């Protein structure tokens, strides 16, 4: 609805006002006349009419907007679902435009695509509400003043632009899957918003492997949500999870999407990440995990998306495929990576390899280093329990 209205107003604030206005009119009208057959279309029509009115009354100086409005009136009000979907897709590309900072893209996606309030977006990223409100206001102003277009990019650019959208959705998901701070391991609200966004995008761009794969990756990762946390709120590592608690519907849906993507053509970064998640999801037990397959997939991922974090995950997989000594060797190569210097999972992975090698004193030092870098209470307890085991 917002997506459709903003096409007319070309101004996000005005569009939001029109939508709110439509809701308040709905309350009054529906109370008298009953709920219409298609409430969504009713609301959208009212919001659009309001937007057109608003446009008419605007300053003459806004001639370009006038033109848009006039075009719109000439066109009969069309309420086909495909029209609304096109609008939504345009709004996604506006929110994830590369001329906006990534943090801003994520905030706008949550605010405008998921409909979270500014307060909720601020809470999601643990920033002050005033700061988030300022960030969103600045972004809306930039969209208007710099004329960030409200349209689906054309071919030569499309691939890159879809990738930017996928990055934003993935970031919402990872932030939710393991919250960087706080006393809960998972931020269910963010995980679900990322799932909504991935589904929305999949519906809008049905024939893209990377789009399908991101949805698969989120489904497969999230299928373990309940099994990752024990009765006392403690973190349970993948090796120790009760796999019967994994959410089978999510796994089935995710696996179907992955196999579709893997079969058709060159695998991108999300396809490979989803394929790795699929190996875990289809392994009945931890000690039946096909680690050689996982290392092979990480090797391919390093080719299309070389990053220290991918290298770290690959090294951890090597420690299970070839043994903790080989894993430790691969991890040691990463110790001078500036990007990983404050990344607790490097120290934790080294601690794990050292523990499995029986080098307890060194292992404990590594877990202690990881503890210093971790702010999530559930992860802290997990690391502390490892340290206590070694002490005891």
């Amino acid at each position, binding site marked *: 609805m917002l997506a459709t209205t903003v096409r007319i107003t070309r101004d996000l604030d005005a569009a939001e006002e029109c939508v709110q206005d439509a809701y308040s009119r709905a309350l009054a009208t529906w109370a008298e006349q009953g709920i219409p057959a298609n409430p969504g279309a009713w609301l959208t029509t009212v919001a659009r009419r309001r937007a057109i009115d608003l446009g008419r009354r605007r*300053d003459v*100086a*806004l001639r370009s907007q006038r033109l848009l409005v006039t075009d719109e009136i000439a066109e009969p009000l069309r309420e086909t679902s495909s029209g609304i979907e096109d609008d939504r897709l345009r709004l996604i590309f506006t929110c994830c435009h590369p001329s906006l900072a990534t943090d801003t893209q994520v905030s706008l996606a949550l605010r405008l695509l998921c409909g979270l309030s500014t307060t909720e977006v601020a809470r999601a990223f643990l920033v002050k509400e005033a700061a988030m409100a300022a960030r969103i206001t600045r972004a809306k102003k930039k969209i208007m*003043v710099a*004329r960030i277009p409200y*349209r689906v990019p054309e071919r030569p*650019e499309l691939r890159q632009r879809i990738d930017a959208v996928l990055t934003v959705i993935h970031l919402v998901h990872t932030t939710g899957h393991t919250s960087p701070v706080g006393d809960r391991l998972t931020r269910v609200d963010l995980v679900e918003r990322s799932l909504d966004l991935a589904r929305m995008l999949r519906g809008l761009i049905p024939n893209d492997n990377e789009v399908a794969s991101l949805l698969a990756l989120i489904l497969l990762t999230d299928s373990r949500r309940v099994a990752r946390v024990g009765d006392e709120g403690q973190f349970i590592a993948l090796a120790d999870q009760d796999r019967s608690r994994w959410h089978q519907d999510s796994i089935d849906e995710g696996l179907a999407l992955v196999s579709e993507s893997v079969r058709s053509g060159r695998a991108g970064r999300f396809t490979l990440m989803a394929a790795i998640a699929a190996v875990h999801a289809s392994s009945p037990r931890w000690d039946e995990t096909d680690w050689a397959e996982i290392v092979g997939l990480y090797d391919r991922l390093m080719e299309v998306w070389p990053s220290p974090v991918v290298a770290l995950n690959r090294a951890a997989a090597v420690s299970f495929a070839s043994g903790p000594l080989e894993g430790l060797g691969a991890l040691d190569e990463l110790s001078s990576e500036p990007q990983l210097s404050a990344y607790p999972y490097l120290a934790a992975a080294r601690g794990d390899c050292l523990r499995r090698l029986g080098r307890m004193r060194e292992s404990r030092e590594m877990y202690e280093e990881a503890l210093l870098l971790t702010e999530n209470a559930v992860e802290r307890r997990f690391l502390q329990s490892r340290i206590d085991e070694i002490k005891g």
Partner: protein
Amino acid sequence: MAEYLVLIYENEESWAKADAETFGQMMAGHQAFGEKNAAALRGGNALEPSSTATSLRRNASGEFVVTDGPFAETKEQIGGYYLINAADLDEALAVAKQIPAKFGGVEVRPVREMH
């Protein structure tokens, strides 16, 4: 249509060290850019190095203080600009991407519309 000012920021030291061939290539690049984008171009110029710049600021008592050099000392300095017409930011960026800026990059700023 809207106007955008594209500011070209480049490393002046690299420019100073550039040989005649590099210089010639850059000039030819700008020439080609200008011809290809004639419809969008509203103007543009190359500037003398920032060592020739003079900056003016007012001090606490409101008097002008004249300083030798650019307003902000940065590694990359404005070496030229283009004023372009574009329907939206994507169109402006597509034009700006074609500007040769071997020793730096460009900044695209929407021109404020005065009503």
